[in-house]
């Protein structure tokens, strides 16, 4: 491994963190997975710069990040289009670009989506803590010293020069996800859907919810129809594990989609977003609208298989185009 300083943060914007595909195996100690909220975007961006899909990248929230290349490096941006530009000249998402020493990369403001994922050829080499480079913001560990990126932070990568040849690789347009402002998320009922009367379950499906400004990496807070539990039931249940995408309904009847910073909870969960739609949760922003579409397990599994097939074909394509020397 040849560790090379590749990037310096000139302006971190409102929130930029180092994330990989998450921290698994420590839920027994109360440690949540963290990780890129839009794993599709990080995985694809990594492939486009010749990295392993699980390599750490930067999760950029809404706007503002400005970084300078400290050496020749290849980068790719997946996820939301936050209007990235190199030295002021707009660049595309889902495509890799070479940067020369001294070049600036800047994210202006969201055209669509909520979070962009920057992959750097050779990865972002922060220390792996409990098996992952992801930042756990609430407990301040992992990532870049447990905190969001700050001005003057310097990021390193492994042998970035060996990735420069991936400049120009792109995700075929037909595989790129589309991000609007009206979302339809596929869900499986449960685990506690039966604690809600039929009227509540209908209300849950019928009308769109609005995404509240209080949403963050811990959860997407929704407002709209109040979802009432059966009147005989208390507000809380005996605490149990929770997984990303599960939709809990606290006493006020306003659902919250749990993201990756929580591992246990004591509210009833009416439904859970299917695995194939989890990446979209990273792109939903305050003011957007969300509807839920119930599917069955076969449909959910079919969607995951299709997603993995896309990645298999992308990997094949990139390795045919850019053979390893």
């Amino acid at each position: 491994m040849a560790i090379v300083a590749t990037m310096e943060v000139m302006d971190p914007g409102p929130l930029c963190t180092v994330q990989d595909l998450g921290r698994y195996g420590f839920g027994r100690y109360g440690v949540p997975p963290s990780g890129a909220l839009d794993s599709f975007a990080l995985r694809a961006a990594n492939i486009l710069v010749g990295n392993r899909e699980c390599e750490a990248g930067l999760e950029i929230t809404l706007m503002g990040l400005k970084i300078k290349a400290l050496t020749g490096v290849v980068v790719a941006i997946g996820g939301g289009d936050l209007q990235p530009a190199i030295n002021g000249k707009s660049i595309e998402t889902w495509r890799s670009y070479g940067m020369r020493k001294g070049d600036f990369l800047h994210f202006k403001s969201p055209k669509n989506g909520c979070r962009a994922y920057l992959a750097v050829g050779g990865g972002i080499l922060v220390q792996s803590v409990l098996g992952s480079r992801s930042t756990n913001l609430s407990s301040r560990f992992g990532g870049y010293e447990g905190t969001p990126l700050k001005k003057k932070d310097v990021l390193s990568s492994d042998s970035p020069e060996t990735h420069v040849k991936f400049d120009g690789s792109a995700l075929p347009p037909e595989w790129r996800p589309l991000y609007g402002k009206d979302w339809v998320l596929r869900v499986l009922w449960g685990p506690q859907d039966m604690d809600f009367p039929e009227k509540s379950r209908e209300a849950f499906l019928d009308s769109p919810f609005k995404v509240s400004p209080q949403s963050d990496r811990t959860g997407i807070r929704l407002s709209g129809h109040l979802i009432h539990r059966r009147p005989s039931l208390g507000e809380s249940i005996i605490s149990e594990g929770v997984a990303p995408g599960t939709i809990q309904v606290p006493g006020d009847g306003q659902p919250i989609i749990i993201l990756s910073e929580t591992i246990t909870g004591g509210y009833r969960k009416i439904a859970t977003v299917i695995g194939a739609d989890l990446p979209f949760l990273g792109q939903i922003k305050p003011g957007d609208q969300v509807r839920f579409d119930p599917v069955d397990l076969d449909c959910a599994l079919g969607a995951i298989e299709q997603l993995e097939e896309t990645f298999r074909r992308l990997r094949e394509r990139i390795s045919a185009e850019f053979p390893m020397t």
Partner: protein
Amino acid sequence: MLYDIPTFRLMGDRALLVELGDEISPSINRKVRELFLKLDRESVHGIKELVPAYRSLMIVYDPLAILLTALKEVVTRLHGETHGPPIPEPKKLDVPVVYGGRFGPDLQWVADFHGISPEEVVRYHVQPVYQVYMIGFTPGFPYLGEVPDAIATPRRETPRTVVPQGSVAIAQRQTGIYPVQSPGGWQILGWTPLRFFDAENWPPTPLEIGDRVKFFPIREKEIPDWQS
């Protein structure tokens, strides 16, 4: 009630909740611990995460690596298995606590709530050998039970936005330790100089489900003796 056979609930297409009873009880929780340890030992391909709780075990899995039916079969088999290798005994940890004053800002309130003295609250709190029912809420936070009825106290009406790391608190018949600074609504009785979460350490927290905890009071000036 302890169930004869596990109840399965899906949490999406990559998490399965296995419920072993319908209430908080030491015996149900013991069964959860047993199933958790058996599954952990079996190292089932495709299982990514095991989160044991009061009466349930959450299994996070990769649905492309293991079918749900196969996963349920393994769980059912291990749950019914009585002649496997022995389950290890839980650990016991003695935890020093400085009670009251700036270390336990709610001690007086809890005493007044029950019409007893702060010293009596402490005496009740240090009396039981508590069982770790689960770790959750934040990394390393142990849910301990059960607090004597005489000092069982509701949560604060307004949660604090910042509870210092090391705070020892109660809510109803539960007690716990805040291992990292976080928001929190429990009544803070005291503070322990021991560390309950350190991501750089292995294991990152000294407690696991089923372990035992006994609190004992120390004075403020003894704190340095307990800080390693």
